[in-house]
């Protein structure tokens, strides 16, 4: 197969948008964290340095993987799934698992910590894409999709146990999204969605803190010092931003008022410093990544490349949207980073690596034909 020059370069718009977002994230992390870093670690650049390292590593991973022929990954699905599940399980091994804020979501090797759920999302996409690519007919039967459901539910259960509701929701959404993208029967989809939706109240009832957060989300001022605190602080930040914001580095809420300002709530700081305008621009950039990602998927000639790039793009889109919904108080606060932007190296590197795979698909897609494998 002879690829044109353009294809060897890959989707430049996609590449530039991803790199810009990640670079902007490094700046935003510095702005959001320098005061708190100074107070807590005596080094205002503490989070900045970590994020910069993550950016460099992430960029290397992204570019490196983009040169890889994605088709070679077809058979890596199962090992990726097993690795993901093992890592998720390791969280519960005493000594390895690290707890923070009442949840065990990290595993630590010396001074280095990894959040397995971030890896698991990519692992799940790889597995699903590989599994269906091997035999597209599997998409047609319920039995055919069972292994994917099994893998997804296994992950969800493990993540649920950490506990981490939002990432669970994220994985669930990716699973359903990928089945939909793969083109399973609508009836089967409904059969999956309805019980999943019914499960939500059960899951909420299982952990009392979720119900508290839910009520805090309805009226945060009912408990301004407890459950409602985080959301209130986020709303204050947004309101302080107005249309054009207070200016980069001029957030008022980052002075320890807003918890997780550099990670899960970095969007609030961005909204404060750059205003609604900045939020709009940021989500335009995120939108470009999603659009180009989907475009790459659609242009890919094989199911594996299609499922892989669409899945990764979907995961990115879903997670970005969930984070924005949390920060703006549309859904109850949960611990979910804004991909490419929030502080957190696992998330950054894995997301960029995933983006590298998508870029690789664009690079290794031969013709101009649109994807038309199924149906």
């Amino acid at each position: 197969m002879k690829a044109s020059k353009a294809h060897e370069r890959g989707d430049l718009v996609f590449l530039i948008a991803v790199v810009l977002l990640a670079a902007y994230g490094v700046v935003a992390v510095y702005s959001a964290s320098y005061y708190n870093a100074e107070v807590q670690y005596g080094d205002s650049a503490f989070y900045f340095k970590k994020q910069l390292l993550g950016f460099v590593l992430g960029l290397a991973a992204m570019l490196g993987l983009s040169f890889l022929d994605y088709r070679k990954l077809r058979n890596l699905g199962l090992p990726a799934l097993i690795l993901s599940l093992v890592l998720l399980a390791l969280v519960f091994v005493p000594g390895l698992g690290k707890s923070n804020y009442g949840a065990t979501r990290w595993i630590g090797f010396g001074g280095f910590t990894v959040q397995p759920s971030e890896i698991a999302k990519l692992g799940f996409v790889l597995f699903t894409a590989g599994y269906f690519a091997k035999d597209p007919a599997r998409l047609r039967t319920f039995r055919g999709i069972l292994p994917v459901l099994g893998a997804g539910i296994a992950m969800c259960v493990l993540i649920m146990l950490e506990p981490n509701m939002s990432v669970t929701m994220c994985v669930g959404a990716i699973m359903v999204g990928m089945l939909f993208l793969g083109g399973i029967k609508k009836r089967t989809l409904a059969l999956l969605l309805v019980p999943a939706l019914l499960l939500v109240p059960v899951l909420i009832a299982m952990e009392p803190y979720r119900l508290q957060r839910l009520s805090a989300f309805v009226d945060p001022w009912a408990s301004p010092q407890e459950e409602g605190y985080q959301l209130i602080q986020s709303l204050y930040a947004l309101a302080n931003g107005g249309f054009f914001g207070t200016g980069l580095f001029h957030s008022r809420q980052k002075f320890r008022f807003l918890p997780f300002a550099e990670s899960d709530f970095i969007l609030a700081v961005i909204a404060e410093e750059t205003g609604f305008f900045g939020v709009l621009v940021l989500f335009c950039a995120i939108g470009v990544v999603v659009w180009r990602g989907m475009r790459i998927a659609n242009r890919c000639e094989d199911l594996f490349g299609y499922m892989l790039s669409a899945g990764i793009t979907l995961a990115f889109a879903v997670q970005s949207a969930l984070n924005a919904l949390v920060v703006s108080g549309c859904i109850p606060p949960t611990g979910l980073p804004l991909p490419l932007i929030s502080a957190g190296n696992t998330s950054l590197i894995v997301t960029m690596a995933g983006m590298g795979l998508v870029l690789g698909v664009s690079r290794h897609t031969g013709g101009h034909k649109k994807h038309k494998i199924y149906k």
Partner: protein
Amino acid sequence: MLAAITFLFCIFLGRFFYIQLIWEDELHYRALDQWTREIPVHAGRGRILDRNGVLLAGNVAQYGIFARANAVEDAESSAELLSSLIGQPYEDVLKKLTDRTRSEISIVRRTEKETVEQLAAHEIKGVYYARNDARFYPYGSLAAQVIGFTAFDRSGTTGLERFYNEYLAGESGEILFETDLVGVDLEGAAAAYLPATDGLDLRLTIDSRIQALAEDVMARALEEHSAKAARAIVLDPMDFSVRAMVNLPSYDLNDVPRDDLDTLNALSRNCLVSDIYEPGSTFKIVTAAATINEYLKGNPDAIPPNRIFSSARTRTVDGTTIKCWSDHKNGKHANQTLAEALNNSCNPCFVDIALALGKQCFYDYLSAFRFGRATGLDFSGEAIGMLLPGSTIRDCDLARIGFGQTIAVTPLQLACAAASAINGGNYYAPRLVSEICSADGAVREKLNATLVGHTVSPEASAMLSGMLEGVVRDGSGKKAYIEGYRVAGKTGTAQKYENGAIAQGKYVSSFLGYFPADRPAYLALVIVDEPQGGYYGSTVAAPLAKEIFEGIIKIMDLSPREA
């Protein structure tokens, strides 16, 4: 799929739009509160001046020092420095500087300016100071119960300091410092300054010279008669402005006995306004005013002023016998007219008057003279007295009220009632404050005399005044006579009751006088509570009123006039 994602994006972008551009102001307003820590900016408390501008209550500049443990950087060395500056033990200061359970803690409530200047030179992080003036009363105990005192936070606790606190206090300002969540000041952040509004000054109707004079006279009386208390009130009877209010024993406003609450309550009470007593014969002024007014109005029931009263010593009403204080022997209290009855303070005559007027009519007068009602003085805690309800009293009660028994009044009520009886019949709301001014002297509010009602006609008033002048010239009030100044008045000697029975040997001696009789300018009610030895109002109280009047004549440089 892209459509679904676009839809999702639109949802939260709409939400961002709403929060950032529509809900913005309300949220921002709420957020402002948490971003700043305030240091109060002192509002100067208004001064209290007498009617001539003499300072009665002012301020001394002092400063409070406080700390915010979260913003303190080097607690040990800061504590060392502070303890040497303010003379508190190092351990105590260190404990306050490291007490992170409170966002702000007071280290010294009040200290001198020099200390604060030294403190400012050192710029200790987390330690602040703010103006916190102390109240100062140049004359100490002068008019102590009228002026009142303030609490440690400078808000008025008693007296005018309390009643006019709203005007005196002003409004504190604030210096707003931008801080982080736990109160650490942000570097490079500008502090916002909200200026304080100083309180307003009160200009009293009290004349400090007359007040001092009256206090002097009453203090000597208190000692001379070994009395329990000595009180006096001086009014301008033409508009009821209070010139002096004396309550002895008293206390120093600069050294309030805060540790002994009972003593403090007793000493700081303005008994002239808040306490009631049975007035006795001074109340005959009211009875006489009522009958004269009714007579002039042509009421056939009213006993004419020139009719001769029965000379008998006793009256029997409802089966009870009422006696005169005099034995009526050897021609005493014989063949008296109203004027002579007043001169002699003969009780049976006033029994006759009250019964002749009848319950309805006499009670109408009591009401017009505002017994059983507040006078409306600008002061907290005014008592309304005790007046039996008209519907329940019997004739024997009515008869006794006629000469000032079976009724309890505040000294202020009696003084005001008498003032209206002799000023032409006008009853004003008594006043202690005439003007509220800003510090530059500009009048913000003028509290003019307000006419509350009419009691008697000008003719009746004039006739009564002539009779009361006679009391001082020829009768029981002789000891208040001052040649050429037409002093008029009425004595009173009341027995005290304890637990519902007459307390043997305990009297209240009083005299209510004014001058000049034809155009009254000064009215005084002098009360000596439980004098030892002599106890008649004519011998104990009348001379005190005379002393006060003589003092006023000297202070005001009044010249004598012909009778």
